[in-house]
Each structure stands twice: as structure tokens, then as C-alpha cells.
């Protein structure tokens, strides 16, 4: 039941993986908070390749929320 569902979406993630993920997400959100519109790709480049999938999912969630707050249309192609 608790086995890893896929490489990108485990039921459980070790602290050493959470640290870069959470840190990148925190910086990404801080940019939004400061009125900027951060670039997803820039952040993805900052983590190891095995964390890019999970980071992308996290960033997209934050991105969509802030775009909704700022009334910026979400670009599906992006």
C-alpha cells in the first residue's frame, strides 16, 4: 500500500529530497509575493534531474494559484 507509486510520486520522500524541493518552491513563491512572475524553467534547472518532475508539479500548483490571484490567464501550452 505504501510502495512507491512511480519515480516521481512516492508515497514518502526522504528529507534530503524535500530540502531542495521545498527550498526551490519557497523562493519561487517569494518572487510571486514580491510582485514578480518567476520562470518555472529557471527553477527546474536548479535541482537534480530526478527531482525535476516532482518540482514541476509543485511549482505548477503555486504558479496557478498566484496567476488566479493576479488574474493572469494560465497558458496551457506553457
Amino acid at each position, binding site marked *: *500500500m*505504501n*510502495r512507491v507509486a512511480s519515480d516521481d510520486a512516492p*508515497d*514518502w*520522500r*526522504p*528529507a534530503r529530497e*524535500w530540502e531542495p*524541493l*521545498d527550498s526551490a*518552491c*519557497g523562493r519561487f*513563491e517569494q518572487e510571486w*509575493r514580491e510582485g514578480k512572475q518567476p520562470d518555472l524553467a529557471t527553477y527546474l534547472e536548479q535541482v537534480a534531474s530526478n527531482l525535476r518532475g516532482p518540482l514541476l508539479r*509543485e511549482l505548477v*500548483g*503555486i504558479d*496557478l*494559484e*498566484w496567476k488566479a490571484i493576479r488574474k493572469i490567464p494560465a497558458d496551457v501550452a506553457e
Partner: protein
Amino acid sequence: MTGSVTNWIRLLQAGDTGGAQPLFNRYFELLVSRCQAQMSGKPPRAADGEDVAQQVLASFFRQATEKRYPDLKDRDSLWKLLLTIASNKAKSLIKQEGRDKRGGNKVVGENVLAGSHSVEGWNIDLEMGDEPTPETVASLNELLQGLYASLEDPQLRQILELKLAGYTNLEIAKEMNCSLATVERRLRRIRDLLTERWGTLGENR
């Protein structure tokens, strides 16, 4: 200290949520201890007692501010009420997890400590009575100190505190001026950190 508890109850019943935090601080560890002590038959797992205690207090605070407990007057009646709620919550948890285990469904919810605990053979029978012994409370304090110490990031601690105090994820997001996605991510991070430390993820990890 009985007077303090009585005052906190009055505040809460008057809709003043300022009474919630001291009550939470006082009773959370006592409840965890009681729930944990009563869950026998399997090696102790910290999150189970905490799950129940957190739900009990969240339920109590919600209902107390809605004036659902007009007869609640003092520390003794509060403790008995909390134990009654705890007993019901524990039984409900056992039933829920029994269903999940049989159905193979993952437990999903807002509970930060939610996990997939095997509960077969557990004997839940919370008894009404006096507060736990000082020894039990001391060992519980040690456990909780370890739990908070494992969360070095003050933001993670704040999220956990708000969650345990019964805030919804959305309320936490507003309180902390961040996105809901961030609250949910950090709750998952907390769960994983606690799991890593306390080993509550289950046999299949």
C-alpha cells in the same frame, strides 16, 4: 491550576479562541499519552495516539465555540469529555483503517499525521478516570520534544501547530500569507519527516 482551566473553558464558550491555545497545550500531550497507552497489541507508534488527540481537540474546540457543551464547567468535566470524544475517535479510526486495509485504499485526508497504520489486533478501550501518571506524561513530553526538534524549520513548526490547533489548510495559507499548494506541500514534508523519524509508515515501506 484548576481555575485556569475553568477560565479557559469560559473564554472558549464565550467564543474567545484565546482560550484554545492554553487548553491545547495542556491537554494534547495528556490525550496522546492516554490514547497511546490504551492502544496495545502492536509496537507503539507515535502518530496513532497523536492522530486521535489532534482530532479530539480540533473537534472539541470547534464544538465548544459553538456552545455545544453548556454543562462544561471545570477541569474534571473537561477531561472526561475529552476522553469520551477520544474513545469515539479512536474507534472510528480503527474502523476506518480496517476498511482501508481490507480495501487497499490509501488514507487520504487533511490530517498531517495521516498514514497507513496496521491496526489489526489492536485493543482500543479508553477508560474514564484520572489523568495519566507523571511518568507517562514525562515520557510523552520527551516524545513531543523530539517531534518538534525534528522540525528545525520554524515555518514547518508553525504549520504543524496551526494544523494541530484545528486550522484548515486554507486558513493556514491565509495566516501564513502563502499559497494553499505550499501548505499542502509542507504538510506532506512534515508527515514524511515524522515518518522518517518515528517510522509510522507501515510494514510495506
